[in-house]
């Protein structure tokens, strides 16, 4: 019974992926293409807000291969200060700053769905590279340059540092998934969702399904950066 359900789910997932994977558009420089289709979102083993594990759907989109760097952010905001030795490190900014940069760049912040799909692909994996973990797979935190972990793994779509490095802002408010009835006082339109974790906190936060909430303008306890997405024009 369980096996039949699993096979059915995978057929749907790969079927839709195959259909939408035809005629792949060329991504702009520094971005990768994520095809339209379904994927496994959430988890059964993480925090209560990751449940239920469910099938979600996105349209096709492009997403930045790396988090936005200090130097890139300074092109948008010349008053943004950082050590010259850290021009390629991920920028740590508030949600408003991230959103303003995205608009300036003609892009936008990813939704939670888009972020999670870009990070884990369609098969429900725990990490962008699979289900095992080692410290050499990740950039520890913002102190290290983007994409410089020893193993240098990418997500199924070719994104770097979707686990570890800095947390990443998403466009979404922190709300329960459909079907989740675990009460959380933080749910609503006060906190934005950040994803991807930072090893500065704890390894399990770098799971692709992990969600955390943060006041959009308060960065005291968390190193939070971002990457942008771009809609695919038909």
């Amino acid at each position, binding site marked *: 019974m369980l096996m039949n359900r699993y096979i059915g789910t995978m057929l749907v997932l790969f079927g839709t992926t195959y259909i939408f994977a035809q005629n792949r558009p060329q991504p702009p420089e520094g971005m990768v293409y994520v095809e339209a289709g379904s994927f496994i979102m959430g988890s059964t083993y993480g925090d209560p807000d990751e449940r239920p594990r469910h099938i979600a759907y996105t349209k096709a989109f492009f997403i930045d291969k790396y988090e936005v760097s200090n130097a890139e952010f300074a092109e948008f905001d010349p008053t943004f200060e950082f050590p010259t030795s850290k021009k390629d490190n991920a920028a740590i900014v508030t949600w408003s700053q991230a959103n303003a940069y995205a608009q300036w760049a003609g892009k936008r912040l990813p939704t939670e769905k888009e972020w999670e799909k870009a990070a884990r692909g369609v098969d429900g994996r725990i990490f962008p590279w699979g289900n095992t973990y080692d410290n050499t797979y990740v950039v520890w935190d913002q102190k290290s340059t983007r994409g410089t972990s020893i193993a240098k793994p990418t997500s199924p779509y070719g994104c770097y540092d979707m686990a570890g490095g800095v947390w990443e802002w998403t466009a979404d408010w922190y709300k329960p998934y459909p079907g989740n009835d675990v009460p959380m006082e933080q749910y609503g339109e006060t906190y934005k969702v950040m994803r991807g974790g930072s090893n500065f906190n*704890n390894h399990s936060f770098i799971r692709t399904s992990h969600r955390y909430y943060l006041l959009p303008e308060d960065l005291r306890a968390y190193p939070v950066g971002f990457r942008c997405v771009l809609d695919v024009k038909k």
Partner: protein
Amino acid sequence: MNHKLKYRLAVPMALFALLQLQSQKVNEFPSKSDPLYKKVDMYDKLMLGNHWNEGAIMQHVIFPPAGLDRPIIGSQADCLDPTSEMLAAYSHKYAITKNEEDRKIANRIFEAVLKLERVTGVSGLVARSFNKTDKPLWHEKVMWYDEWHESSSMPGYRWLGDLSADKFTSIFYGVGTFWELCADEKYKKKAAGLLDRFIGRVVDNNFKLTDLDDKMTLWGNFCPDLPHQSLNSLEMLAALKVTYKITGKERFNAAYHMLIDRYHYDDDQINSKILFPEEWRNVGDDYHAARSLYMLMRFEDDPDLLNKYRMNLNRHWYDWKNIEFTWESTIWFIMVYYVLTGEDVFTEERIQAIKDMWGFERRTREFKIPQDDGSFELVKSEEEGTAAAMIRNYWFGRYYGIIDEKW
């Protein structure tokens, strides 16, 4: 100046003087040339006088005008570290002196740890810190850490949540040492009850520290089903061992062996110390490993497990043997290694480093205090750090015969 004006000024001046007296109860500092016992005695008075927050020990105190007349303004995320250090210090001290006054102080510090649980209103949920205040204090908005709550179980108190693995270690280390060396029968039961609820709640949540919102805290992951640091495997084994020893409850022994037999925490913990690449070495983490190994290796008698814990210790020693004594905990590592192995590792240089232990200097700096209208006011005030680790080191060293009372 006429008499009327003098009279008008006298009252506020007297109040200001009284405020100063109350806020800076102890102002005498040792000099660096003083003998160790005198330095420890004077820092002890400073800590108990200026850092005492209803038994909890503040890691950082800001005096008026930026602070208040009570030591409840300052960074508080790590208050459980100096609190557990002073609890251990007074436990070791009582074991030597058998002085009931020392025991009373230890009891009061332990009661503060109980209050850290009671203030949350949730059995087994322990706060990082608490303050008696009915409104948010200015430092909550700007200083690490920001998870402050109004207490529903203790009206008029606020508490800081999101407990971490580090503070988890402080609790089983401090309370465990208190139970072992100092607590009378009544307090032994209280200590056992606290660890039963606190560690029991973590076990019930699949080895996660969870906060009021039921989410795992930022640094609260010991879960066998989630990737976590090897150091956290060590800390969880030590916590379970201590709690089993103190409570005698089989569930903690069963959990300990489940993590070993099914999830191989005994193998995982060996690599708690990251040695290579060298830039990943972290002596801050070593402190938690040292406290865990100190408790675990004395309470374990299985030779196979002891061998694995010794492997962990050896990996730490590879770094510690060449470590510079830059802060008090690095000196404590050497003492712990000696206690656990019996190896004579006290060179002249290390003995001198122990004799030279120092607490803190009182400093003056400007604080940026947020105002209601969103602006900031700059206020200059004095502040103090903590000498709790130094005081703990001293009584730990005295207890194990490392430190001579004449030093």
